[in-house]
């Protein structure tokens, strides 16, 4: 089991009572917050066998609160080195720490965006670009499972909005 970090955008900001219901539904490993663009999302660190299973379990719990649903799934750009290692899949946190400290590699690892006691937060965009160009690592631009989950959530939203849920479900079974 690993801990997977991801973000699920909600259809709207939950009320305080709804936030408590989200917590009671099992989302005590997710934080409710919003962005400067007006969006509201859950920032999740979910333990599961895979990223897709982690996302699915969060989506089920969101739906248990009437009036709330997911409208998108993505990754935060801000990551710890542990998060970055899990997203990379082929480097350990220790490996990234050695690259960040200059103990290994050519140097020039991106500095943290912010540090708070023992929490150092980096930009995944900057880290992944540096790993591709300086270390030759093969990292896709977009995480495949995040892209799949986001596409599925958006399809589900459109199906619900057009009352075509059963038809879309059958379409996925035969496609």
């Amino acid at each position, binding site marked *: 089991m690993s*801990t997977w970090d991801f973000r699920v955008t909600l259809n709207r*900001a939950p009320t*305080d*009572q709804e*936030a*408590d219901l989200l*917590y*009671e539904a099992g989302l*005590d*490993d997710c*934080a*409710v*917050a*919003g*962005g*400067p663009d*007006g969006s*509201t999302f859950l*920032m999740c*660190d979910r333990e599961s066998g895979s990223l897709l299973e982690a996302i699915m379990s969060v989506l089920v719990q969101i739906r248990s609160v009437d009036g709330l649903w997911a409208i998108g799934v993505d990754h*935060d750009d*801000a*990551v*710890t080195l542990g998060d970055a290692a899990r997203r990379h899949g082929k480097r350990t946190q220790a490996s990234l720490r050695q690259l960040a400290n200059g103990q290994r590699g050519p140097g020039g690892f991106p500095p943290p*965006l*912010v*540090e*708070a*006691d*023992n*929490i150092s*937060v980096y930009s995944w965009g900057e880290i992944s670009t540096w790993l591709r160009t300086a270390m030759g690592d093969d990292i896709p631009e977009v995480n495949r499972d995040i892209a799949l989950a986001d596409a599925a959530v958006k399809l589900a939203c459109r199906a619900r909005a057009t009352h075509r849920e059963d038809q879309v479900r059958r379409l996925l079974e035969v496609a």
Partner: protein
Amino acid sequence: MVGRGRHQYNEINAAFRRLREIPTLTVVESHNGHRWGWVRCICGATPFKVWSTPRNAGNHAKAVVTWATGHARCGKSEEES
């Protein structure tokens, strides 16, 4: 400006100390339901709800610091508008 509230978890208090350095953020202690309180940005975004008993305090602390980085430019946006 940051309120004086202390959370029961040291990791979250450490995150609050960092947030204290960001003048556009305010930490509010309220103790309602499962919420210890929230962190508010002057941009008016949905505040970051701080749980009293998150499943993992370290991850919750990381989340609030991560969220704060997403609001790093809010003060500058407010000045420019």
